[in-house]
């Protein structure tokens, strides 16, 4: 564990450079090359590893009014099973009678096991307070699905409904710029400035986009969860603010994850 942390610390300086170079070549790097590049980069360690280690510790430490750990948290594969759980999310949970993504599910666990009020987390900002704790937990959980095949189960009718709602959200044009997600992510080989935009309506693009988030963002030196990513895309879309863990964000995640089924989970990702 320790050597992993050291690698991660020295990482930014060493790899920051090659990432810039790879950005200039962005248009030429197809998905396969992108994946090779990713593999090469994580050999040097992903700075998100540090957060994943913190998250691992948070997972097993007693906390909150009830002074319990999250060791009994059920992410879909049974209480306490973390390995491979993220590759199968979002999913329908019978205990909450809702389809949940990782972050809304973690809030449920923190509420039921530890007594932490989810409303407080929903009202916070990213990278602050309890929501930062959630991000660290996310880093831990998604690391435990690295290399797994994305396999989101769509058998439950609620999942099918969420997929359809997510699909509608994805194509929903609104706001002063008339944008929908599809304006930027609905066709192959599009770029905004030099940033490649994966086509999230197709398996290949969805696997590349969904499969590489949550991610460490080198430009910001920050770890961003999927909720954070979507939040910033809505901002760029010039729409109102999506509420943390809201159904619209979960439905979009279902849409992307199901489209990505069969792809590889490359989490946590490394981004510009």
């Amino acid at each position: 564990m320790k050597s992993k942390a050291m690698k991660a610390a020295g990482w930014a300086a060493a790899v920051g450079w090659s990432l810039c170079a790879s950005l200039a070549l962005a248009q030429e790097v197809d998905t396969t090359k992108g994946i090779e590049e990713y593999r090469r980069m994580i050999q040097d360690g992903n700075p998100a590893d540090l957060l994943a280690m913190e998250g691992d510790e948070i997972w097993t430490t007693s906390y909150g009014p009830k002074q319990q750990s999250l060791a009994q948290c059920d992410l879909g594969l049974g209480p306490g099973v973390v390995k491979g759980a993220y590759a199968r999310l979002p999913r329908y949970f019978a205990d909450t009678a809702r389809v949940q993504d990782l972050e809304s599910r973690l809030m449920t666990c923190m509420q039921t096991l530890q007594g932490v009020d989810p409303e407080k987390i929903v009202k916070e900002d990213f990278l602050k307070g309890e929501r930062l704790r959630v991000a660290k937990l996310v880093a831990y959980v998604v690391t435990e699905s690295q290399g797994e095949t994305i396999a989101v189960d769509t058998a439950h009718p609620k999942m099918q409904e969420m997929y359809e709602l997510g699909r509608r959200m994805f194509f929903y044009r609104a706001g002063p710029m008339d944008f929908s997600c599809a304006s930027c992510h609905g066709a192959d080989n599009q770029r905004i400035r030099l940033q490649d935009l994966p086509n999230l309506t197709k398996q290949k693009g969805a696997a590349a986009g969904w499969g590489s988030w949550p991610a460490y963002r080198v430009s910001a030196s920050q770890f961003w969860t999927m909720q954070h990513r979507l939040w910033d895309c809505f901002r760029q879309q010039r729409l109102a603010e999506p509420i943390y863990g809201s159904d619209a964000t979960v439905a979009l995640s279902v849409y992307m994850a199901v489209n990505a089924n069969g792809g590889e989970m490359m989490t946590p990702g490394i981004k510009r």
Partner: protein
Amino acid sequence: MKKKWMIAMLGTLAGIGAAQAEDMEQKFREMVDRSFQSRGIAGKERMLQLDFQRVCSRLDAGDKVDFATLEALRKIQQDTIRWPADGNFFGDWKRGEAIAQSGRGLTWSDKPGTVNGGGCYNCHQLDPKELSFGTIGPSLTGYRKMKGVSEESVRYTWSRLWNAKALNLCTTMYRLGDAGILTEAQLKDVMAYLFDPESPVNKDAK
């Protein structure tokens, strides 16, 4: 595995009656209503769709929309076009360049009163020396030579900028004039950036 599911899904969709489709639409609206909140200048009312936005969303999602509907909506967009009050289409290309470079404005992290940019480089190549350009729209490098400077060409370009939806209802290019993203004076500066022979868009184009 996904394919199999998609086929199953299509099967169910085909079996859905009008009432169930209506039900899904209702669920969708309720989901949008409870999932978003106002923040800064980005009020929740932005989640409501204009007529053409709704129809274009359906078209993008693969639904069939009849030509007459699209054409009627396009005509409404065409009627929004306002020509420059003083009949002069051109401002300063240098200011136009700054507007084309800037993607600022209209997000919840922008303060009220922020001067909006045009964000042109997000989608278009313009100055051939600028390597950081997007590819959602066509290259506009050498625009003057490509389009000519006839009155028709100038008016065509102005109307594109004022409201791109007037020509192509479901284009991704936003309504710079009609939606109040740029002012008339800013649009003139952008016009100069596109047409002025001294503008790098034209001067440095091969």
